[in-house]
């Protein structure tokens, strides 16, 4: 007997079935169209990757790697540095690779943990490192700039900021420079020229201290992302010079802000135009004498008298250096 059930026509049923794959395709296509910065807040570079393998292959001398290195990105950084993640993310954080090492690979806890932060640019890596350096830290040759304090070693290598943390009974004997070399080998060459450009200071004496101030340098809101360096001069005096770098538009804005500041404070700065630079000298009743030497992409300044001994080395450096390229720099 023929099936008496009265089905809707076959073309209609076929059409209904065909709608589903169409819906899947539409969903998939729209799903790929998004602003990764907004939604995924994923790192630009896949965390870990080849680095993890290199760290495993060549551990620091005398140490063995414990388990596979762990990788974090912006989405889960807070799991590792609970409560402090935002300071890193707002400073340009891209990814973190964590490797644990121990004298005995089967030990219950690591003797050394290497936290390798990719901070996007050397300036951002430097900035975050300086926020971590404690006053009692000793300057040590590690990477491009390094410090050790107690059981912690910090160093800079291109856009990477590395924190080496020693713990347990072997901490006191930890050879931080050797461990740093192993990490540097895994990271590969860093561009030394970039670092020289980043710390574009003239040689004014013995460097006592280098600092990074993200915002409001000396309470002045227009000084952002400033590096300042303290020198001990031949006569025993101390001098602080600061440097702010950025795109030409940022320097024009700085010049404008300085003018507005002078007006608001009732100051009459002396402005001298040079071939491709401008010298602005302030006599400030509160701050004393200070100056800013402005080029198209850099501003040097100092809270000191703008004499030739100070300005000539700056002028010379300004002529030597290529313009600063802010590519990839996250505005501080």
């Amino acid at each position: 007997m023929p099936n008496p059930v009265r089905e809707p026509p076959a073309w209609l049923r076929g059409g209904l079935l065909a709608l589903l794959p169409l819906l899947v395709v539409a969903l998939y296509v729209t799903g790929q169209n998004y602003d990764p910065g907004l939604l995924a807040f994923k790192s630009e570079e896949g965390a870990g990757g080849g680095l993890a393998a290199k760290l495993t292959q060549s551990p620091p001398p005398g140490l063995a790697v414990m388990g596979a290195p762990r990788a974090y990105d912006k989405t889960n950084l807070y799991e590792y540095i609970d409560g402090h993640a935002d300071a890193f993310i707002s400073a340009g954080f891209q990814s973190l690779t964590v490797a644990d090492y121990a004298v005995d690979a089967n030990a219950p806890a690591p003797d050394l943990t290497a936290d390798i932060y990719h901070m996007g640019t050397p300036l951002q890596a430097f900035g975050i490192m300086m926020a971590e350096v404690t006053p009692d830290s000793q300057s040590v040759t590690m990477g491009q700039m390094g410090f050790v304090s107690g059981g912690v070693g910090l160093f800079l290598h291109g856009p990477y900021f590395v924190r080496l943390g020693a713990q347990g009974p072997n901490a006191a004997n930890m050879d931080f420079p050797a461990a740093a070399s192993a990490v540097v080998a895994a990271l590969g060459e860093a561009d030394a020229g970039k670092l020289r450009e980043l710390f574009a200071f003239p040689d004014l004496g013995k460097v006592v201290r280098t600092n990074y101030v993200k915002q409001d340098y000396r309470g002045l809101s227009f000084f952002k992302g400033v590096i300042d360096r303290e020198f001990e001069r031949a006569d025993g005096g101390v001098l602080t010079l600061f440097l702010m770098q950025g795109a030409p538009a940022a320097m024009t804005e700085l010049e404008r802000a300085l003018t507005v500041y002078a007006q608001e404070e009732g100051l009459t700065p002396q402005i001298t135009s040079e071939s491709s630079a401008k010298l602005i000298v302030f006599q400030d009743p509160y701050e004393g004498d200070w100056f800013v030497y402005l080029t198209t992409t850099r501003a040097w300044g100092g809270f000191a008298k703008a004499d030739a001994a100070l300005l000539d080395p700056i002028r010379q450096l300004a002529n030597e250096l290529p313009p600063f390229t802010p590519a990839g720099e996250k505005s501080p």
Partner: protein
Amino acid sequence: MNMPNIRAIRRIYAIFFFGLFLWLLWILDPQHMKGYETGLILELSPLTAIAGFFTSGTVYLGLAWALPIIFLTLFFGRFFCSWICPLGILNQFSSWLFNRRRPVDQYKNNAYRPIFRLKYYILAGLLILSAFGALQIGLLDPIALLTRSFTVSLYPAINQWGVGPYLNQPIFLGGALISALLIVLILANRFITRYWCRVLCPLGALLGVMSLRAPFRIRRDVDKCTDCNKCLANCQGGCDPHAEHRVSECHACMNCIEDCPEGALHYGLPESRTSAAKPFDINRRRLGEVAVASVVFYPMLKSAVSASTKPQHQTIRPPGSLPEEEFNARCIKCAACMRVCPTNVLQPALLGAGFEGLWTPILVNKIGWCEHHCVLCGQACPTGAIQRISVQEKVGEKPFEKPVKLGTAFFDHGRCLPWSMHTECVVCEEVCPTTPKAIWYKRVELLKRDGSVVKLKQPYMAPDLCIGCGICENKCPVEDYAAVRITSVGETRSKANQMLLKGKS
């Protein structure tokens, strides 16, 4: 190739849409959501679109998806309930599971009962409240209800076994209550098939009303019908296909067509010997009573203390939230925002925001904090109760002048370690994400009880810099009741809930 029959196609649709619902909710997290239309199933609900239109005067962009559903229902009946609705599909499946091995009289179970009218009264009450401006449909809209239940109870439960979608095990305020309601709803299917859909569902009722004049419907040829009643055996709607058909109850599940041994039933336009349909079964007197009750209830609702009648310190809303009145006019309590939030700070409010705010999202900073660079809840919200803002807007980067402020942190000096216990602690200052930091400190030397002097940093708050993200409260080492706590005052979204920070002129 043989084309599957219409019942099989309906089952394929049901599996597809239920799977789609599970998947879209599963990927609703920072790592996986990409640009996927994660709110799609919520946006399909005509009840959300219509009630939201009543309360806010607008149809939020995503909710335009409901328009095709409305249009199709007008012509093809209440198909949504058994082809698309995830709660309907879940109910149907659990009814089948419960009754599979029991000697149930399916004919009696699937016959129409007067209690099925209840859903129309519920719908009327909710729509009248909406017309006055109180959006409570989220409590009972089946898709919002299921999204909330899965986000707050089922997915976290699965996560306990290590296979769930959450990065960290979440916990939710009053989660057990939401779980219990879901369990009761599912268990009710043991007594009446699709209990929720037939008796309670306001969306089902709305679609039922819309389908009253649908030209395409189940039709019975009275000449062919032998009154065997086999069509009742698997009827999902309880809509009497064997007699005068109740169109508003029919889910267009197509089971009756497949079960009829005579081929007396078909889905389509009327034919010469088609039986008549039963008029819409609703008691006008009851309807009038419900209308009066709703009209009376509305001013009562508005006379109660709630975050919209008086700012409530604990009603801290997610970044991008509309002012409280408008927020309540849009939020459907679906908890999509709670699902996407990476820190678990978003919690379903209990009665703290007022009855109107039940299960709407609030920040509970003991549980989490608002990540400085996260704006995901606005992306996930299907109704625009939380607006889509950019990270720049949230943190106040150019061209935006100020960051979005959720509230303000206050120190409780009696509990703060440096202030009252002579103990060094600057955790709150360390974690504060603003630049410059809203928390700062003064170095002080204090005389201790034993006469010794201790040097400490005592923290202070700069209220104009604080954005109310709550990380200080969350990380404060005074565990149970932190020494620094956020309240909603100063929130960007409210003109009224502000402090006088500049002094009186």
